[in-house]
């Protein structure tokens, strides 16, 4: 526990906006609860709904500590990919593995406990519970006691800048706050990987910028990998180290933001016709 705190103590003296020492220690200790996983890998994933091929053979690898963007036009299969990775959708063909261990057959709950957290396109908060309780539930789901889960929830809310309103009921939250809290709730699961499905949709410019900072900070603060689905190119290009482009259920391109932006196939098939040049210019 003390050893776990040492790097945090170091940061305490250097970093400007680190929460109080004690709370940081709690966070660090809780993170050590479960072994962190290194890679989450989808291999040749197919999903068919009746006759529709939502995914037709996608390979995707997420690495801990890295933010991977998943982009593509509406109906490209992005949400389906998240559903597959988080166990809500069985792939018709192909496999999902966590550090080489096949997890395709696990239930959504088991996968969540194995360290893969997700947010939903519609935030899906527990509406009758308070903000703090929403996060506490996920902490309990990851195996913490109620007390530890609540302490962790306060730390995360502190980090995300919502600590003052921890007791608000979630049915009173604004759209933007709902999305922030749904990210926080995913983080409360102490995941090795977080999958964020359009976390910035419906946010205004200022909130979007704030969210970018939050997302960019997730890998170092929570020691996990992030998969980010987003239509806002500014957000994607701003925070992702790797970008994966889907179209019609197939991988179009994969690479760094620079490479993807220059890729002629991508420009023609997706960015060119959907997003304006303005969004590409950043």
């Amino acid at each position: 526990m003390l050893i776990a705190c040492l790097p945090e103590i170091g940061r305490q003296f250097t970093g400007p906006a680190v929460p109080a020492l004690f709370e940081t220690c709690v966070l660090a200790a809780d993170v050590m609860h479960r072994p962190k996983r290194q890679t989450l890998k989808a291999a040749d994933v197919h999903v068919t709904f009746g006759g529709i091929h939502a995914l037709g053979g996608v390979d995707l690898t997420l690495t801990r500590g890295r933010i991977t963007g998943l982009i593509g036009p509406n109906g490209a299969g992005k949400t389906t990919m998240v559903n597959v990775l988080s166990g809500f959708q069985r792939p018709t063909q192909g496999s999902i593995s966590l550090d080489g261990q096949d997890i395709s057959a696990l239930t959504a709950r088991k996968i969540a406990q194995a360290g893969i957290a997700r947010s939903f396109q519609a935030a899906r908060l527990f509406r009758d519970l308070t903000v703090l309780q929403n996060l506490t539930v996920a902490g309990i789901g990851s195996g913490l006691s109620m007390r530890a889960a609540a302490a962790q929830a306060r730390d995360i809310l502190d980090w995300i800048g919502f600590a003052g309103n921890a007791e608000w009921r979630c049915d009173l939250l604004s759209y933007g706050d709902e999305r922030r809290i749904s990210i926080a709730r995913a983080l409360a699961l102490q995941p090795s990987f977080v999958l964020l499905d359009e976390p910035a949709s419906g946010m205004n410019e200022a909130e979007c910028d704030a969210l970018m900072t939050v997302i960019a900070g997730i890998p170092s603060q929570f020691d996990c990998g992030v998969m980010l689905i987003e239509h806002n190119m500014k957000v994607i290009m701003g925070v992702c180290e790797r970008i994966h482009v889907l179209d019609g259920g197939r991988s179009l391109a994969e690479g760094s933001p620079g490479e993807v932006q220059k890729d002629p196939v991508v420009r023609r098939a997706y960015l060119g016709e959907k997003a304006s040049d303005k969004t590409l210019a950043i």
Partner: protein
Amino acid sequence: MRLVRFWFPAVALVVPIAVLVLLSQSFAPLTVQRVVTEALIRIVAVVGLYIFVGNSGIVSFGHVTFMAIAAYAAAWQTCCQMLKPITMSGLPAFLRDNTFPLLPSALTSIAAAGALAFLSGLVLMRLSGLAASISSLALLFIVNVVYSNWESVTMGTASVVGIPTYVTAPVALVCAILAIVVAYLYQVSSRGLTLRATRDDEVAAAASGISLYWSRLFAFTLSGFVMGLAGVLHAHYLGTISINAYFLNLTFLTLAMLVVGGQRSLAGAVVGVVVLSAIIDIFRRLEAGVSVGTAQLALPAGTQELILAAVMLVILIFRKDGLMGGRELELPRGKAEPPARVQSAKNLAGAAGKT
């Protein structure tokens, strides 16, 4: 102060009830005292029902079954030493030939109800919300049919009489307080919290690592124990039981109380019992007739049921979250005012969300 805040929702329910009961003990006529005792037993039953229905959001039509199980178990152990070998000859010898002390009998009866809740829950909780509700109705029917026809053990649909009656208002009060405290501690525990999360959103709960099955099964079992307590009280209050007393009428009465008060809070469960019990009693008296001056006035029989139905309808139409609207009685929070910065961001976001 934190302790006060923690216990306030339970204390705010218990204290007024205790005061009312003690006042009625000293000042009210015997008929009112009986009404109070009956209401207290119903509080135990409806709070038991609430533990599962309120926290899980799944309506159960089968809960009075657990009352029946406990009531019969208590009757077998404590009633009519002389008659038992004749009227219930099919009982196992140790039950047939012995009479057990009241407290152990109560505890084992409650345990029997809890055990049945656990065993039936193993199956029922596998089903999704609506299917579980309907299957719980099947449980009610199965036990009813079995007990109605197992004449050598249950005396069929006839009443079992001669059960010792020790349940007075103070005894029922202690049990009602116990039920309220158990329900409250459960709902603020981690299990209660996670179950309420599944009630709000099953999918998000699964994504948060919560097992729908185990959290529901735990609540179902716990509520089975509390229903068992209600059954034991009921048997030892009336002194006579029959299986049809634990059937559709009681099922719908307890559910109506829960709905009128508001099924999503413990306060709602308790308030629903108090309000409906009062209405039922007033109209029962009016049906029986009251003398105004020299004239004798009486409402036609059945008015009470009609009024009950009307209250239900009004609540369902105008206040579908019940009288308490899903809220507990809580101390007001100190820092209710959100900080200005967040408030403005909230407004901005609200505007953005609408466009």
